[in-house]
Every structure is written in C-alpha cells, then in structure tokens.
C-alpha cells in the first residue's frame, strides 16, 4: 500500500483549511475550513490504520472525530446565526467591540 499519497493529500487539505480559517471573514466559510482540517486528520488516521493492518484504533478514532465534528458544526452554525441576527451580517470582523 502506498502511504505517502494519502499523507500528502491530507497535508494539502490541512494547509488549505488553516489558510481558509485564518483568511476568510465569512463565518460559514471559516466553519467549512475547519471542517477541512478535521477531515485531513481523519484521512491520516484511516490511512495509518489501513497501513498497519492489525491496528484498528485509528478507524475508531476517525468515527469519533466525525461525530464530534458534526456536534461542533451544529454549535458553530447556531453561533453564526445568532451573530447574523444581531448584526445582520455573517462577517466575523464585525464582532470587534472589545480590544486591548
């Protein structure tokens, strides 16, 4: 089995996610970027798990991550919705009343 391709793909996804999360200003897009990062980690876990053959805890880990990511996005969308309701915008930069 070729492990490197999976790891490179996951690294690319992770970097895309980090870039998106730091650069994008729209709340929904930030959530999507974070989702990319979590799935990059999932890909790693499953690829390593398949590579080691007898080791399945990586796949179990990935299942837990999928469930937790769903919960996180649920909370995240609620937060973006609340922001949109109070500021009529999903732009995260608008929430900047506190500084220092």
């Amino acid at each position, binding site marked *: 089995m070729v492990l490197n391709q999976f790891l490179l793909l996951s690294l690319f996804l992770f970097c895309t*996610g980090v870039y998106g*999360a730091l650069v994008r200003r729209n709340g929904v897009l930030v959530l999507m970027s974070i989702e990319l*990062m979590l799935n990059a980690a999932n890909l790693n876990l499953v690829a390593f798990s398949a590579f*080691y053959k007898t080791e399945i*805890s990586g796949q179990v*880990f990935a299942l837990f*991550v999928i469930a*937790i990511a769903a919960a996180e996005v649920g*909370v995240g969308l609620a937060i973006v919705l609340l922001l949109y309701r109070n500021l009529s915008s999903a732009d995260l930069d608008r929430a900047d009343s*506190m500084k220092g």
Partner: protein
Amino acid sequence: MLSVGIPAPDIDYHALAPEIVVAGTILLILLVDLIFGDRARAHASRIAAFGVLGALIPVLTLGADGGDVSMFNGTFVVDNFALVMKAFFLIVTYLVILVSVDSMSESDVAEPEYYLMTLTALLGMMVMGSSRDLITIFVALETISIPTYLLAGWKKHEHKSNEAMLKYFVFGVLSSAVMLYGMSLVYGATGSTLLSVIAEGPRTDLGQDLGTVMNVGIFLTLVGFAFKVSAVPFHFWTPDTYEGAPTPVTAFLSVASKAGGMVAIFSLIYVGFYGRTDAWQPIIWVMAALSMTVGNMIATKQTNIVRMLAYSSIAQAGFMLVPFAVAPEDGLNSYQSAFSATVIYMLIYGAMNIGAFATLMAIARRTRSGEISSFAGLFSYAPTLAMMMSIFLMSLAGVPIFAGWFAKFVMFQATIDGGTGMAYALGIVAAVNSVIAFFYYGNVIRLMFFREPTVEDRSPIRVPTALGAAIALCAITTVAVGIYPELFARLGERTPF
C-alpha cells in the same frame, strides 16, 4: 454466524461511579425541565448542586480504598492523580454553581440549561482526569469545550457576550483541529492511540525513521492544548472571552476549563511523551516564559478588572507550565517534584481565582461596573468584601500566609530540583514576574483602602447567601492552606502511571 468473539469489557462500577452520578444528574435536570417546565426552574440549581456533592462521595470512598483501577484496555485509569483531579473539578463546579444561583435567577436567561451545560463540561473534565488514550482525551476535551462555547455566549441578547462566544468558538475549534492533526501524526508514528504504547516511542519495524513525524505530532498536539490553557502566544481569545462572558462563566472557564486542558497536558507529557524531552520541553519552556512575561506586562495596563484577571490568569498558566519545562529528563521517576508542583499550583489557583471572581460579582452588584476605578474606597462602605478581595489578590500575587505563596514555593522548588541552566533561567524569569505581579494586584488593594469612594450609595452591600458561602469557602481554603501547606502538600503525590 454473527456472534463475534469480542469479550464484554470488564467494568468496575465503583470506579466509574462519580461519572455515572454526574451523568445521571444531567439527565435528571433535563427530565425535570421537560416535565415540569417553568415551575421547576428554580430547582435546577439545587439538583445540580446535590448531584455534584453526591458524586464526591464515590470519589472519597475510592480514595479510601486506595489501589489503581485500569479499565477498557488501559484507556481509563482511576489512580490517585485522577481522583484528586476529579475531586477538584467537582468542588470547583460546586462553587461555580453557588456563585451562579443568584445572578442566573435574576437575569432572563435560560436557567436549567445553564446547569445542564456546566455539568456536561464537568463530566468531560472528570473523564479527562482518567484518560490515558488519545481517543479518550480528544472526546473528553470536546465534551469540555462544546458546552463552554455555549456558556460563554449565555446572555444571547448582549453584543459583548456574542462576541465572547464567537472568539472562543473560532479559536477553540481551530486549536482542536490542529491538535487532532498532531494526534493523527503521533498515532501514525507509534501505531497506537494508547499513551502507554506511545511512550515506547516511534515504531522501528518499518525500516524508516519516524522520529520526525512523531516530533511534529507532539508539537502540533501541544500547540492545540496551549490554546486551551491560554498560554502565550495562543492567548488572543482569552481577555475578550473573559470580559464578554457572564462573570460566573468566566470563573468556570478560568479555573475548570483551564485545568481540564492542563490535566490533558499532564497525561500526554508524563505518560506518553516523557521519553522525548527534546521534542516538547523547549516548546513548553518558551510558552511558560512568554506567558508569565506577556501576561503580567499587559495586566499592569488594564483598566477593567475582569481583563486584568484574564491577563493574570494567562500569567498564572505560565507559572503552572514552569514545572513541565524544568522536569529532569533522566529516568521516568525523577519528575515527582515537577509533577506535584503543577498539581498543587492548580488546586491553589482554583481556590483563589474562584474567590476573586465571586468577590468581584458581589461588589459589582453595587458598582454595576467592571472598571478598576469603581473599587475606590470600597473599604469604607464594604469592609468585609474589601478584606476578602485583598486576601485573594494577595494570594494570587504570592504574599506569604496566603495559599498562593505555597504554590509559588513548590514551583520554585521544582526549578531547583530541575538543576539545569535552563531550569534556573526559567526560575529567574518566574521570580521577576512574581515581583511585577505585585504592582497590579497591589494597585487594586491600594484603591480599595486609601481612596475616597466614587459611588453615591454607600450603604453596606448585601451579599446573597450562596455567593457569600462561596466567597467564605474560598477564603477559608486560601488562608488555611497558606498557614498549613501540609493540607495540600500530599495531594500532589502519585503512584507512577
């Protein structure tokens, strides 16, 4: 044939009892709210408080029994350290409930759900104390984080509270993702999620050097947890979140949630990564030095008391990280003093910081302000509260006879036991910062005692019973441990993992 040969796990219900009681209380609050609705609104806090105290009983009986229990293939371990941390989390949550009761029932926010979220986060922390596996650690961490994101924005019509929640959430999930990626690399290098197997180092049977992969994994994992304990340079969210969130939630975040992250660092470093000191110790060293210095420097400039305490909590996180950075690398059993130093620091920090926030809430009932200037002349109309605030602030600064000095003492002891040049250097940074801290804590005390009050209404402040009880408990602990440090000194002892 569908019957698969997986044996049922061996479950010790006594060892799991604290978690079961808390989980049961969570369900009970949910059920009572569902059936009785608004009529039972006021009972949620009572159920939560009794549930938390109830969960303390099995923790105490387990402690009296002694002996370690290891379950689920070694992923869940109940030992002395786990029990001390569980008791700490339960007591801190109990104090936070006491602090919350009046401020929650006086405002128009959802009340039963507040306790539901607090207890869910507590459950995550308790599991974290026992986690000895990457999966369990990750799940426990998210069980702490997700409810606390919501708690930070509990006053959902207030703009500041929204902003607090938003910043905490974005940085929180970002750090979770970075940490998870790090964990996936650690798993890849070692082929196991179990910390005891990870401790054996990267696999060598593949004919490749996986050491670098493992080091990168360790780095990313620790960066993720640095966000959680708000260590510099991953601290940006802390002041804004602490200022915007409701004050009881801030107390909870600054103590319980920070300690949750710290406990994870404990198991990861002392069980999993200890053999690879060169990979994690320099990172922790830099973070500890930066957290203490930056936290204290910025704290001196703050005009808002909550922001000042936020930066002070960043600095305190730095002090807590010092023993990790100086733990000697020879042999797995040489780090006892570094280990117990952080445990003791954490316990004492819990008492004094919750106390400070509780007193702050009592004072803010009159001043309706978070500005430090509003503390002027407090002693002339509320002498008891001014005394209490002084006790907690002096303890945070590390003045002898209050518990904080013992926390600092064990921390410096650990740097001396570390014995290397880097350890002494960090000790000097810590000493300089302890002196800087006197200025901003002392400034508040000076205002309270030696300035003319600025508020109109100078009648004595009425403190609700629950809030007063929380302040009294924290003050008694702070003074008692300061005078008899032996009370806490033994709690840091441990059997090797």
